[in-house]
């Protein structure tokens, strides 16, 4: 890694090199521990057949976290002057833990997760499921240990100067502990509701198992608001959009104009939902009626003017193009959703009833569940008779948010301190002296 070179000389530059593993430890020992944990992790993963670890759920996760916290408090309270504990709360240990964790996340970032075609070696090293793997677990443990110990050593007793440090370090510990410790208690279930059907409480988990809920839902109405469909110039033979500089499409809104190469095209009329008749398209509200536009194309070169209807088509009707010459046609793309929402009624086992409108980015809270609009039938689009909603329960969320808000406060603090630091570019020596004093204290 990038910090390996010349690391040891930092604090021992004066005298001769300190023998390996002789306290006080530095980077060599830290990186060796990281490497050792990594190898141990991979060995454990391979020995267990690459199954990874299952996140413990309540109450085991709480017990484990409390135990971890107590170990850290105990080590700090009784062994803080021992060289190993002193080292664990030092910057070299923190950096070693950060590097180990970062290395594993890098593996995660480079391997598709979860991939269907997993090579057996990939699986046995835990690379198909990095965040559930043994090496990741050991890295987190090391991380929690160093972060916890350094938080206690440098953050307490609380002084004005250590507030930023405390917010950032304690915030991170709390966030990560609650996020990882609590992941086993998180429930994510989906329910697919049909318009016109009665109440349903049949939820499905990620593994596809059916789970009955204590709340039943009824979809009263599912609706989509769409953007005006885009009109493109396409190559008639391949149906490919003709690439243009910058502005590439015409919006299907009455009066809008756009120039496609030689052709100046204007939308004369737009019907969001229409059916083709002998004379052209007329407005219609029946299911599957696609949007259509009456367009006029004027050729600048030949001074010809063409007028005709185009339509994106739908799952029931074919698209309609307008040929402008032997090579090119005007075509309308399928409309894109601006927003979609489900009008839902619910009833709980206790008899509580209610009604809500569910939208993307606007979840609803009922009986400890957070409910999300997820999807609809893509093929039928705005005539989708169904809507899929997701129910999420995450009892650890308040703890995670507490950590996140501490981190945010810490970031703001860092921002101001960062500003204070800029007294003069040459003040790094002063900072160094302060740092050394901190190290020694």
């Amino acid at each position: 890694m990038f910090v390996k070179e010349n690391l040891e000389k930092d604090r021992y530059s004066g005298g001769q090199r300190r023998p390996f593993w002789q306290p006080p430890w530095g980077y060599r020992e830290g990186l060796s521990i990281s490497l050792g944990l990594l190898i141990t992790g991979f060995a454990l993963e391979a020995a267990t057949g690459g199954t990874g670890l299952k996140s413990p759920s309540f109450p085991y996760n709480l017990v484990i976290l409390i135990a971890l916290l107590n170990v850290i408090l105990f080590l700090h309270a009784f062994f803080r002057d021992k060289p190993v504990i002193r080292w664990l709360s030092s910057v070299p240990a923190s950096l070693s833990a950060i590097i180990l964790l970062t290395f594993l996340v890098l593996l995660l970032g480079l391997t598709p997760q979860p991939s269907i075609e997993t090579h057996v070696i990939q699986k046995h090293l835990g690379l198909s499921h990095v965040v559930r793997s043994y090496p990741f677990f050991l890295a987190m443990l090391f991380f929690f240990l160093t972060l916890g110990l350094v938080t206690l050593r440098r953050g307490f007793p609380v002084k004005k100067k250590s507030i930023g440090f405390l917010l950032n370090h304690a915030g991170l510990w709390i966030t990560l502990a609650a996020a990882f410790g609590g992941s086993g208690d998180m429930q994510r279930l989906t329910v697919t509701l049909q318009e016109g059907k009665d109440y349903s409480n049949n939820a499905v988990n990620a593994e596809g198992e059916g789970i009955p809920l204590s709340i039943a839902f009824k979809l009263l109405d599912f609706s989509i608001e769409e953007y005006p469909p885009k009109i493109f110039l396409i190559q008639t033979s391949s149906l490919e959009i003709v690439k243009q500089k910058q502005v590439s499409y015409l919006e299907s809104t009455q009066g809008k104009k756009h120039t496609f190469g030689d052709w100046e095209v204007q939308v004369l009329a737009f019907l969001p939902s229409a059916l083709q008749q002998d004379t052209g398209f007329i407005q219609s509200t029946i299911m599957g009626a696609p949007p259509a536009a009456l367009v006029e194309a004027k050729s600048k070169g030949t001074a010809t003017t063409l007028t005709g209807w185009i339509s994106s088509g739908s799952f029931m009707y074919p698209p309609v193009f307008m040929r402008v010459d032997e090579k090119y046609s005007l075509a309308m793309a399928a409309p894109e959703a601006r927003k979609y929402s489900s009008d839902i009624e619910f009833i709980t086992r206790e008899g509580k009833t209610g009604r809500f409108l569910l939208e993307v980015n606007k979840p609803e809270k009922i009986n400890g569940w957070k409910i999300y609009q997820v999807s609809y039938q893509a093929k039928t689009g705005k005539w989708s008779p169904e809507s899929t909603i997701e129910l999420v329960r995450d009892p650890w969320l308040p703890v995670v948010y507490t950590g996140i808000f501490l981190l945010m406060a810490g970031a703001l603090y860092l921002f101001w301190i960062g500003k204070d630091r800029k007294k003069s570019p040459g003040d790094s020596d002063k900072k160094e002296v302060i740092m050394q004093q901190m190290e020694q204290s």
Partner: protein
Amino acid sequence: MNWLNYPLVVLVSFTLWILGTFLLLIPFKRKQKDAAGLTLVAVGILVIAWFIIQLWIHLDRPPMRTLGETRLWYGFFLPVIGYLTFLRWRYRWFLALSLLLASVFLFINYLHPENYDKTLMPALQSPWFVPHVIVYMIAYSLLAASSLVALKGLYHHWKETGVQEELSLADNMVYIGFAFLTLGLLFGALWAKEAWGHYWTWDPKETWAFLTWAGYLSYIHFRIYAPKKALTPLLIISLAFVILLICWFGINYLPAAQNSVHTYSGS
């Protein structure tokens, strides 16, 4: 005003920046020329700002969806940071470099014209959208600025002249940039909870955002531990910036990221 007017906008800004930088760089009658140079640079920045505002109005949505749109913000924030740094510390080279880097990104937009697109998918329609992107773009600009400083530092290191001044300036930029990076990451997490049901799913973009964050975290810790070291921190900044760039747009080319929920660029 839309992307069709863009070539003119960059031409005007580039001309103003080149003239302004020229006036700031030649060591001759500094007092009078500095004022003129700074004015030219400022007007160039305002032209970009004005274009962003016009584009926002024209698109009828925040221009923050596509890579090209984010590059535009970068081309705005980076000169602003260069400008403020100049006002604070009088680093002429830094203002020139930040204008140069901003110009590179703005020029990429010129070479790869954006598809004008008014649509904004429902997942992006959130009060978190604007703060998340703006905070991230400020962070990215500051961290790019720190890379420019590191570049100068590497040059000085190679020349065997002192680099403490560069490192000290880089520290300031990384500290503030890291604060913004953290806020952007956390805003993203809070938004993800509202939009997708979970604050962190190790989506490829999230994974690489974490790696970027960890890179600068390493820098900060390394600097605290070994403030006298020169080469290692400069290399950490450089590496972290490469990771940042992968996170920002390299991710679109990674096989591991084909299923990312963060690909909004394709239309």
